[in-house]
């Protein structure tokens, strides 16, 4: 199998970044207005192959919006995104042309997204959820797609659920299926949008464990999260956002224990006092 989990070269979890490859994602000058509300005020982020980047910050800081701009679920007001050599520039003033839409689709094929609310397709079995896009978009032959789906289901520990319907799964199981669904497209980068925020506390662990494994196996990922312990374990780099800007970034130990910026420190102090404020 190819894709994000193919890198046998590093198993340990070095802090230095020596295991990182060439740039895979490059977001430049991303701005976003909601009406007159300037939500993203010029964000630049480069993510290298096998790098796990965690975006942290209080709700309303723009981290989810930024993530959604990376695969154009939100159209940025300005800036550009490049994934695996496919570059798309924001063009908010014009109706999207066919060519532009196709470029966006190419970006989306190369990035897999995991949502806070899972968004599994309720009218399809788990297996059908997993093979739908590979067979129809990547034109993978059905037997091969099924084999791939079963492998990834096994990876998230749900091999026996392949014929269930999503309604019969717990929240944690749903989210693990959603991760498997994203993996089945063998994307170049995984985007996680607060994947544990909609889960009951006792179900968070099983999802974080899967994500941690992915990070340690060298999946390239961008994660919006409030799970600081997880960030410490799995991140190569932690990025702190406030008011639509990157305030500070660095390795997790430094960012979480000894950040330079006052605002980061303040966020962490408040956050650790009450770790689950109203989610965005």
């Amino acid at each position, binding site marked *: 199998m190819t894709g994000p989990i193919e890198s046998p070269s590093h198993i340990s979890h070095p802090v230095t970044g020596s295991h990182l490859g060439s740039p895979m994602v490059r977001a430049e000058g991303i701005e976003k207005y909601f009406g007159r509300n300037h939500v993203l005020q010029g964000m630049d982020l480069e993510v290298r192959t096998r790098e796990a980047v965690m975006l942290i910050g209080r709700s309303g800081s723009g981290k989810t919006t930024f993530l959604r701009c990376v695969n154009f679920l939100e159209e940025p007001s300005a800036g550009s995104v490049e994934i695996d050599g496919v570059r798309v520039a924001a063009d908010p003033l014009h109706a999207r042309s066919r060519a532009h839409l196709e470029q966006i689709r190419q970006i*989306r094929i190369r*990035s897999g997204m995991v949502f806070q609310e899972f*968004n*599994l*397709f309720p009218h399809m079995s788990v297996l059908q959820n997993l093979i*739908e896009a590979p067979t129809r*978009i990547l034109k993978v032959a059905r037997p091969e797609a099924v084999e791939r789906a079963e492998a990834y289901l096994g990876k998230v520990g749900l091999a026996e659920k392949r014929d269930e319907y999503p*309604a019969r799964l717990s929240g944690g199981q749903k989210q693990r299926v959603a991760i498997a669904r994203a993996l089945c*497209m063998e994307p170049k980068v995984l985007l996680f949008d607060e994947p544990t925020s909609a889960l009951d506390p006792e179900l968070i662990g099983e999802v974080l464990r899967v994500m941690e494994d992915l990070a340690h196996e060298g999946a390239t990922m961008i994660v919006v999260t409030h799970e600081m312990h997880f960030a410490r374990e799995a991140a190569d780099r932690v990025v702190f956002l406030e008011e639509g800007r990157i305030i500070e970034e660095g390795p997790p130990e430094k960012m979480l224990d000894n950040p330079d910026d006052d605002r980061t420190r303040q966020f962490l102090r408040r956050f650790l006092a009450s770790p689950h404020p109203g989610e965005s």
Partner: protein
Amino acid sequence: MTVSAQAPRLPSLIEQIEGAQDRARTVFRLKFAGTWALLLGLLIFGLWATGNIDTTFIELWGPFILLGAPITILLSVVSIFFATLLAIVGAIARLSRNAYISGVASLYVSLVRGTPLLVQIAFIYFALPQFGIFIDSIPSGIIALSFNYGAYMTEVFRAGIQAVPRGQREAAASLGMPERLIMRRIVLPQAFRIVIPAIGNDFVAMVKDSALVSVISVQELLWRARQVGTQEFRNFEALLIAAAIYWIMTVVFSFGQERLEKRMARGDR
């Protein structure tokens, strides 16, 4: 311990309560059905007691009128099918980002909903021949019913499509699915489930509205009843038979629809 001392009593108490609840439910159903039977019986007896009801007419012409029922059902089934197709196309068109397409669909809905079904039926059968377009009565009826219900159901489907959570489209889009595929594979199947009860309602309504096509001589229930009723001067009996058949059909279809809904509710949602 007191708990273990009481434990043997508990199952029998539960059984007693359940038994009492079952009995209450059965009694309610019996009274309910009895009320129906009593009222209907009174009605029929009252009619018979007037001595004004010609039972031989009913025996003689009842089967003739009843033969209209298959035609009524045929009209309704075929028309609900085409109406559903029109509604799917209409709803997608109404939601289109293309102003022309959305405009066409919305004008269709407005024109059809803003004019009486009876006028539409007459228009197709009586007015189109002026332009050299001759359509037989049954196809005319099907066209009119399909277009009319298609317009109403367009709004139903539009609401159904909009009721599918936005996250579903986003998840599909994030997998790289193009918009057409998202509509066909993700949105429409879920929208369809949402609107199935409404389609059932519309079908029952259509069975009754199909009586309007009697004005263009489709030989369905009402037409047959009018025909023999006028001919034999027994309109009361003839229309009573027609009404009874309509009513029985709607009761049966409503029951079937209820069952279908219950089964869907138990489904995998």
